[in-house]
């Protein structure tokens, strides 16, 4: 009898709080988006599941002694996002960017989204009940970088409490790129601009691909050491792949190792989706600002391309400017698709991969600025 009462008192039904129930629904929603809608499933599925597990009453899976608590150390210590960045580096081909380096400027322009939403977050402080510190605002702004590991790395350093919402927003909007970007791209370009054909990319030699990650790292060391954890691990992964002499390490970095870390990272991010942290008006602000960041980043990239066309005789199709937000390779595919609608013989995919990977570098640089200037 006593046992039965004690059992009843240990059930989830008895112990549920409204907040936990809500967050569990959010977790199921993320699973639905991942599985049924195909929204960045590699991340949103573990995040969603982590959200469910961490909001189970009594079980304490995300508390001291629970597995999600231990996995979270991988984020807290900055290890997981850097290992993912290494794997992404090993997967990245800088060939298209090296063939047309000025597209790097498109990747620079798209980072306006980061700083605009940072300002936006500070502006939202006028709303009563919203209080974003400079650190909070910077962590929110980085959503505009459209790069998952960068966002998680910066958020874990500057605003760990907002990490769950920021990661969810970052990955969700990356999945929504095919919906967010096209209207902006169409509004800012003329039919003639969208028809612009770009000249075929030159062949990039293996030596250039080997030297590039080292060049990138060196520049980052000289100018912005605070970006070197991110840039360095990315360049390391890229060098392992480009050099061709450590293929077994490169393969492991871009397959098993990144898969293992993705599972752990996703679950650990999910463990930050607690009711107290997520069910706040702040979260609405984060979601709204994230969308703004993506939109402004897209627009800046497109406008930068149009600006560059004024000063250059080899024209750039401004659609590929939108790919500067990163969201690799989704944004490049979107540019290609919109381009094909206007000119069915114009394949922009490879041209868009240049600004696309430049956007990854751009947001890592922006992350370095934020980490270095905000104390």
């Amino acid at each position, binding site marked *: 009898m006593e*046992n*039965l009462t004690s*059992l009843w008192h240990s059930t989830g039904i008895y112990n549920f709080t*409204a*907040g936990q129930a*809500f967050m569990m*629904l*959010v977790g199921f*929603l993320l699973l639905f*988006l991942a*599985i*049924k*809608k*195909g*929204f960045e499933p590699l991340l949103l599925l573990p995040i969603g599941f982590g959200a469910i597990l961490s909001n189970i009453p009594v079980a304490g899976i995300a508390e001291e002694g629970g597995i999600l608590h231990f996995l979270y150390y991988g984020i807290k210590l900055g290890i997981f996002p850097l290992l993912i960045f290494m794997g992404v580096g090993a997967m990245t081909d800088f060939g298209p960017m090296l063939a047309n380096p000025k597209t790097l400027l498109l990747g620079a322009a798209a980072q306006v989204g980061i700083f605009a939403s940072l300002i936006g977050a500070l502006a939202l402080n006028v709303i009563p009940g919203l209080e974003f510190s400079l650190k909070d605002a910077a962590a929110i702004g980085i959503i505009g970088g459209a790069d998952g590991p960068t966002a998680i790395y910066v958020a874990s350093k500057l605003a760990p409490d907002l990490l769950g919402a920021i990661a969810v927003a970052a990955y*969700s909007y990356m*999945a*929504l790129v*095919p*919906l967010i970007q096209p209207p902006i791209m169409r509004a800012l370009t003329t039919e003639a601009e969208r028809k612009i054909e770009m000249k075929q990319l030159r062949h990039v030699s293996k030596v250039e691909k080997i030297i590039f990650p080292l060049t990138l790292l060196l520049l980052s060391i000289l100018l912005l050491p605070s970006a070197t954890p991110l840039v360095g691990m990315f360049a390391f992964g890229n060098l392992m792949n480009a050099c061709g002499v450590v293929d077994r390490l490169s393969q492991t970095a871009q397959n098993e190792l990144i898969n293992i870390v993705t599972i752990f990272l996703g679950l650990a991010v999910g463990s930050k989706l607690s*009711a107290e942290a997520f*069910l*706040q*008006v702040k*979260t*609405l602000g984060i*979601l709204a600002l994230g*969308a703004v960041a993506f939109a402004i980043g897209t627009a800046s990239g497109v406008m930068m391309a149009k600006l560059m066309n004024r000063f250059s005789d080899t024209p750039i199709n401004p659609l590929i400017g939108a790919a500067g937000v990163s969201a690799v390779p989704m944004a490049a595919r979107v540019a290609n*698709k919109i381009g094909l609608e206007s000119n069915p013989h114009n394949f922009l995919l490879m041209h868009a991969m240049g600004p696309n990977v430049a956007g990854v570098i751009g947001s890592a640089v922006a992350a370095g600025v934020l980490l270095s200037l905000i104390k």
Partner: protein
Amino acid sequence: MTELMSSGIELMFAGMSIVFLFLTMLVIVINVMSGLIQRYLPDEEPVSSISIPVAQNTATDTSYIAAITAAVHQYRSTH
């Protein structure tokens, strides 16, 4: 000793009751679930819908943000 043994026996009855209760409820829930799925989501539809590319799901983007927004508001209003 006898106290220990009686806790053990109590534990056994509680334990087996819960195991049976749990798995019986799981049987019921599976039957309900399978019935609903076979009726409303017969096999052709889901398999194909899962593999359709993301770009086609134009309907859900706004409903998604709306859902989170609603959840937050509802939580706020009850706390």
